């Protein structure tokens, strides 16, 4: 397994690097470098995911009242309540993320994107936002799109977002490397530590801005969004996005956990064979999430291969390629 030298230095933002795991099957790679990672980072991840992306928001707000939709890979469910006139069912591989979703009052279940448990041709629309880039082979990415198309009715629209290889600015990707690990690092802030054990802290219903970040002593540095979350002196959590388009948002903290999130995260990281820095040195577990970075046109090519849908709209937004497809 490759090691990211930056991960050893908590002052350094971890950089993406080539995913080189010749001994793992696609399924194993997803288990270790996607499912296990999201389970471990769920509350922290959720705290950085509250602002709907405008294209997704517009897609949902334009759906006729009463439409039913599937959110495949719903994460913390941030899109499910965007348009209250719709009925949406979320699903995700991470039971910890689905738990957060459910606490918010959303309909959600744990399942695999390649085996959705729905009756065929049921939904009026579907979304899959930042999900398909986590499948580790071309066949599995194609199968993921086909499975979504199986459960929507003819004429239904499906919105898909995937991470772009060509992204510029905030991240420095090697344009020749499409399969990468993007580290998620947790660094200690010196405050009383919290417990981030197996059960995630839950978030207040219908309040996308209120979160109970369990790891009260942690700050989270993520190379994806360049957010830093930290506990300040007043015990209020602040999110400081480094992107100038976002404003700082105070976040309330309902409960103060007891034990060490650091230790829990470290143990979790060890168990999943993640890239871990010795806790005695800096207590900085680093979780390497697998991504397949899509090149321009690759998503449309996959859609064409299904022979079951056509692309009606496509574009580039926030480091992602996206497209809206219509099922034949």
């Amino acid at each position, binding site marked *: 397994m490759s090691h990211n030298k930056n991960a050893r230095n908590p002052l350094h933002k971890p950089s993406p690097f080539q995913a080189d795991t010749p001994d793992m099957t696609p*399924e194993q790679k997803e288990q270790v470098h996607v499912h296990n990672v999201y389970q471990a980072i769920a509350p922290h991840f959720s705290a950085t995911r509250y602002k709907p992306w405008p294209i997704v928001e517009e897609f949902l707000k334009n759906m*006729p*009242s*009463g*439409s*039913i939709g599937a959110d495949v890979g719903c994460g913390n469910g941030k899109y499910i309540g965007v348009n*209250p*006139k*719709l*009925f949406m*069912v979320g*699903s995700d*591989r991470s*039971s910890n993320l*689905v*738990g957060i979703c*459910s606490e918010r009052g959303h*309909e*959600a*279940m*744990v*399942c*695999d994107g*390649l*085996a*959705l*448990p*729905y*009756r065929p041709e*049921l939904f*009026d629309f579907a979304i899959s936002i930042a999900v398909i880039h986590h499948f580790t082979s071309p066949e599995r990415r194609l199968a993921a799109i086909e499975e979504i198309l199986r459960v929507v009715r003819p004429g239904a629209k499906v919105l898909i977002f995937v991470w772009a290889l060509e992204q510029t600015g905030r991240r420095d990707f090697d344009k020749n490397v499409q399969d990468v690990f993007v580290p998620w690092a947790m660094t200690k802030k010196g405050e009383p530590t919290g417990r981030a054990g197996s059960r995630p802290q839950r978030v207040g219903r219908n309040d996308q801005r209120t979160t109970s970040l369990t790891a009260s002593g942690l700050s989270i540095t993520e190379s994806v969004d360049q957010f830093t979350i930290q506990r300040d002196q007043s015990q209020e959590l602040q999110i400081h996005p480094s992107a100038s388009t976002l404003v700082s948002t105070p976040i309330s903290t309902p409960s103060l956990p007891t034990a060490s999130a650091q230790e829990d995260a470290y143990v979790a990281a060890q168990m999943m064979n993640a890239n871990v820095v010795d806790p005695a040195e800096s207590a900085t577990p680093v979780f390497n999430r697998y991504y397949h970075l899509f090149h321009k046109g690759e998503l449309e090519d996959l859609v064409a291969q299904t022979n079951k849908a056509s692309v009606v709209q496509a574009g580039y937004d926030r480091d992602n390629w996206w497209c809206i497809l219509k099922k034949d």
Partner: protein
Amino acid sequence: MRLITHNMLQCHVRGCNANNFPLELQEVVLEQEEAEMNEDFLRNMLGKLEYDALVATCHKLDINDLPVTLPEDAQYNEEFLQILHRIILETHVKSGKMVCPNCNHTYSIRDGIPNMLLAEHEV
């Protein structure tokens, strides 16, 4: 899990393609929770519901308010739509299990969340 969602689920174990719906609810704990009524949604859902399966499931749960056959004027029958709303949107399964009538695969429901994950060999 609301009862409407149960009406959407089928067994998806590999090779289990017939008689795999509806999943049989067993040992369930139900809870009523108020929700805002959306008639557009209910009318849209009428075309998607497997009504007979819904009625059969409700009977097993001792919910006997639904007429055995879908009323012809269901779309505009206020009283019926209200009953339907209460049953499919306000009735939650908090815990229990769902068993496939064909292959007997069992899916658990905990904290209101169905776990529909399959083992690798079942996908």
